[in-house]
């Protein structure tokens, strides 16, 4: 009797809890909790990896720190103590995890400054670069992708797709170097119009400073946009092509809507659904993929810092940056998962 009644009771409770609301409301919190928990597990896994992966580097980190100078044994021991390298590996690991959870990634070997400070210093610069590029290539990709799909097989479509595929196959650092040669150094009749690298010329204030930074921003942003927009274009194009045969578009046309209204109001919003996931994932990926462009243009951001840290190698800084890059991708993927069911209720069941 009781055994029979229990499931019914539980069902009853669930119904009263979710009763008056829409079905989406009942499924979404659980979906959200699942995704957030998954992301937390991934972040922990990244933390563990970042610790053990970089312990595999052969050689003594203390020797790298002193840069081959003649140092007494006492001094080496002092360095070991300072950076906690005299502790057994498991103690280093627990210390590392414990501190990382409070936002402390240790002290950089080469800068003698907290890793967190170096990262927070460079982060705004990276966000400025990637943010600008991200907005531009997403807009360009969606715009050209829609045009391409709407006039499928036409000259414009073929040129667009071909160009996107070609730029997609070009190494970003090579394009950056070429742009520097042609537009910064200048060849033949072309004068050098843009700075070769860095983020500012220094000594400027107020509006002049903003203009100066924007001037430095042009070439790195162009490079990023050129190599990244192709993917958005291709995904938007195939998503829109999937929608094009749909009945609602025929209906929209049949009621006499102009062609571009059918496209803008009816086809594109639906076709953008699959693109949304890509857009979020791209945002995370761009932060991590910016290493090359920042290195080529000596942009003072996370990517340039990562390159500097790798060449030492500066373990705590490499670990911290590795964590930040991976976290950016994980957080963005999770955000995509969370936003998607709000846009397309079919996904959340």
């Amino acid at each position, binding site marked *: 009797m009781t055994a029979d009644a229990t499931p019914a009771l539980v069902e009853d409770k669930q119904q009263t809890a979710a009763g008056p609301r829409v079905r989406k409301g009942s499924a979404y919190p659980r979906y959200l909790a699942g995704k957030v928990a998954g992301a937390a597990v*991934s972040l922990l*896994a*990244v933390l563990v990896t970042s610790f053990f*992966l*970089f312990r*595999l*580097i*052969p050689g003594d980190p203390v020797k790298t720190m002193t840069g081959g100078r003649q140092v007494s044994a006492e001094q080496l021991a002092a360095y070991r103590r300072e950076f906690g390298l005299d502790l057994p590996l498991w103690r280093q690991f627990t210390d590392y995890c414990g501190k990382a959870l409070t936002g402390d990634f240790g002290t950089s070997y080469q800068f003698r400054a907290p890793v967190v400070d170096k990262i927070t210093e460079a982060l705004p610069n990276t966000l400025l670069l990637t943010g600008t590029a991200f907005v531009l290539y997403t807009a360009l990709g969606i715009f050209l992708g829609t045009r391409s799909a709407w006039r499928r097989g036409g000259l414009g479509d073929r040129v667009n797709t071909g160009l996107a*595929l*070609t730029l*997609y*196959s*070009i*190494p970003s*650092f*090579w*394009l950056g*170097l*070429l742009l*520097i*040669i*042609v537009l910064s*150094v*200048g*060849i033949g009749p072309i004068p050098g119009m843009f700075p*070769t690298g860095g983020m500012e010329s220094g000594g400027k204030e107020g509006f002049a400073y903003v203009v100066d930074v924007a001037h430095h921003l042009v070439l790195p942003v162009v490079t990023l946009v050129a190599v990244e927009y192709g993917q958005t274009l*291709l995904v938007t*194009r*195939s998503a829109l*092509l*999937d929608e094009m045969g749909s009945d609602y578009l025929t209906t929209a046309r049949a009621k006499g809507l102009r062609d571009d209204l059918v496209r803008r109001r009816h086809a594109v919003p639906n076709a953008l659904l699959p693109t949304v996931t890509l857009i979020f994932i791209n945002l*995370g*990926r761009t932060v*991590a*993929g910016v*290493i*090359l462009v920042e*290195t080529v243009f000596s942009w003072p951001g996370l990517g340039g810092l*990562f*390159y500097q840290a*790798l*060449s030492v*190698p500066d373990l705590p800084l*490499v670990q911290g940056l*590795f964590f930040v*890059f*991976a976290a*950016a*991708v*994980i957080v963005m*993927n999770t955000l995509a998962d969370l936003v998607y069911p709000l846009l397309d209720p079919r996904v959340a069941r």
Partner: protein
Amino acid sequence: MTTTDPALSPRTLARQRRRASVARFWRQYRAERAGLYGLAVLALCALLALFAPLFVGSDVSSVTDAPGRPMQSPSAGFPLGTDQFGRDLLGLVVWGSRVSLLVGLLAAVLSVAIGTLIGVTAGHFKGWYATVMMRITDWFLVMPTLVLAIALATVMSRSLTTTVVAIGVTTWPTTARLVRAQTLAVETRPYIERARALGGGHWHIMSRHVLPNVMPLVLAQTTLIISTAILAEATLAFLGLGDPTVVSWGGLLQDAREAGAVSAGDWWYLVPPGIAIAVVALAFTLCGRAVESVLNPRLGVSR
């Protein structure tokens, strides 16, 4: 009818069927114009790389007895100019194709092999094994590929093996995902049940029934991953994480940057290796897309 001819053994029949499907595949592939261009370019590059020793000799990368003066711009003697040691750049670019193509191919094969192994086994054995494998796959999928590859290349010694492993180990998850989905679809078909009823073991089912069915997908995936791998190889070499003793396209670009070719405006040093990378990567992408659209006609229309 040949299919009912008792004189033909099952083996012959299978071979005939396979030959027919290859012929059908080629007929459809020929209709993809971009794919044909890609294939032609690849054939040309492969020939050039294979027969490179005939025209450039292995001493092309020797620093000690370089034929020209340092940093000469293109001339009749050196059609692409010379590098900072006076080596012939045309020879270096041709020679570099061997390493770039080899590393690209090996890395893609490694990546697809790992992906196929994990995909097929995770699709075949359900339960905790599949759960664990798919968690690992998902974890690799969210990791920023480039950052992980750079990290791996940093912690291992500088060699071609390192580059191949760093690329292969970081790019397999998409393949694993695709192959697993296809395996799950194949495993629901009745002939798998028949094979199981006749006593076919796990190995028999996976190797004789599932694998041949996922092979076309694996082929398309390999072609697409080669172009990613070639770009990744160039990137690692450019960051100074490749083998410093061999000549590759990415390594040439790094040399150019270190020699100050950028600030000196020596575009002729930078352009050829970059174009070589882009052309080969594009050719593999075009071939991969053509193979994909032959295998999946719905995709072919929409792309």
